[in-house]
């Protein structure tokens, strides 16, 4: 009888993690940052395939890595949120519960499946001015192994996270205007990128969660709107 091949659990996990990290770091970065009107998300993306999407009234999603995988995660997030909002009320759909559910689902794939998901995601939730205890924005990051963390001010996934975060740590201030926030995002993405050229409206995907909007607060900015904000 042949002996089954043995690999220690530590080794298996380490291999899977390395495999996932390699895929993710090859991609480009996405930043979510707070500004005076809510949360702004900016990605380097010259294609028409979106990396940032709407989940629910106050919640947005961004993913890096393998498109098919994070887009599938976006869709299950929409299903999760719409089902919950239908069964209870729209106000019961919260970013934290969604981020936790993502963490569970992604962690489960990491331990059970041969191949981990080669993705990293952000769940962003804008505060609600109607209620005292909901005023703050929340930014959650979930990594390929299901590790979840929450962030104040800004959150970065994908590509050269270290450099982009360092640039944001230097220049981020409370109460940025939309124009300032998008230019800071552009500058930070430029820092993390190896291209050496400046990103412009044709290579940026920008979405906002607008505090002031009624109902669904997610808005995708058109190329012209991005151009306008970059020039303000």
């Amino acid at each position, binding site marked *: 009888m042949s002996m089954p091949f043995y690999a220690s659990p530590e080794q298996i996990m380490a291999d899977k993690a390395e495999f996932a990290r390699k895929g993710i770091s090859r991609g480009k970065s996405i930043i979510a940052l707070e500004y005076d009107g809510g949360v702004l998300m900016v990605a380097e993306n010259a294609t028409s395939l979106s990396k940032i999407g709407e989940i629910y009234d106050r919640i947005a999603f961004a993913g890096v890595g393998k498109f098919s995988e994070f887009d599938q995660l976006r869709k299950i*997030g*929409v299903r999760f949120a719409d089902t919950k909002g239908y069964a209870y009320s729209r106000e019961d759909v919260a970013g934290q519960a969604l981020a936790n559910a993502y963490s569970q689902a992604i962690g489960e794939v990491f331990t059970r499946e041969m191949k981990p998901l080669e993705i990293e995601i952000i769940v962003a939730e804008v505060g609600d001015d109607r209620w005292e205890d909901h005023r703050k924005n929340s930014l959650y990051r979930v990594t390929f192994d299901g590790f979840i963390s929450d962030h104040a001010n800004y959150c970065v996934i994908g590509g050269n996270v270290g450099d982009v975060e360092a640039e944001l740590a230097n220049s981020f201030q409370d109460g940025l205007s939309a124009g300032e926030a998008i230019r800071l995002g552009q500058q930070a993405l430029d820092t993390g990128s190896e291209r050496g050229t400046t990103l412009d409206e044709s290579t940026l995907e920008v979405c906002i969660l607008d505090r002031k909007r009624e109902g669904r607060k997610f808005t995708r900015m058109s190329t012209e709107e991005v151009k306008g904000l970059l020039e303000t």
Partner: protein
Amino acid sequence: MSWRGNYQGASFFELLQVEQPQLLPNLSAWSDAANSSIPHGTTVLAMRYDDGVLVAGDRLATAGHSVASRDVVKVFATDSHSCMAISGAAGPSIEMARILSVELEHYEKIEGQSLELDGKANKLSQMIRQNLPAAMQGLAVVPLFAGFDLRRRSGRLWKFDITGGRYEEAEFDATGSGGLYARETIKQGWRAGMDQAKATRLAVDALTAAADEDRATGGVDLERRIFPVVKICSGAGVDDCREEEIEAAYRENLARRANGGSSE
């Protein structure tokens, strides 16, 4: 939440059928005999005007011969450019409007673009068809669906029957217990290319006539300050008609009747 759900499509209604059927209304145990014990909605109407389509409904719900509610809402915005008005058994009808509005938003988020207005009307007709067993036991859902078609740049409206039959109307329609009277009034006053103010006055006239002839229709209640809901769908989206405008239209209608029917 799991990485691989059983349902992979873009429809919220089908998602519930596959993953959470307990959340959908199940009316199979319903008996016709209990029909007078639950609220029914009464008169709703829709009509085209020059910039879009107007949808209106009175506020009364009745259970048998009693008033169930005086200020129920029977006209719902189902998304930014469409409305649904319900008559018939209030519970399942209002639930259907709720599911449709989640359905349209869900599709838009999953697919990244809205359904065409035709697609929305078709989806509603499928949902009505699903309700057929309950409709056969008296729980009919017979809505009007109307919206602004962003491609054709005009308002459109549809009526439905209990089997899900979907019929587009070119001018106007009204349904519910007072629908016949409302329709007659609109027929006399409707003109192609009429403006929104005229359409609003005509809608109030029609609901007033329906309330006059049909005991289950509410009309305008000045004593309690309860006004019909009038929603306007135009290129700019769905908007509520202000109560002052509805009240003014109603007072004009009263004055006209006091004058022995002369129109000015």
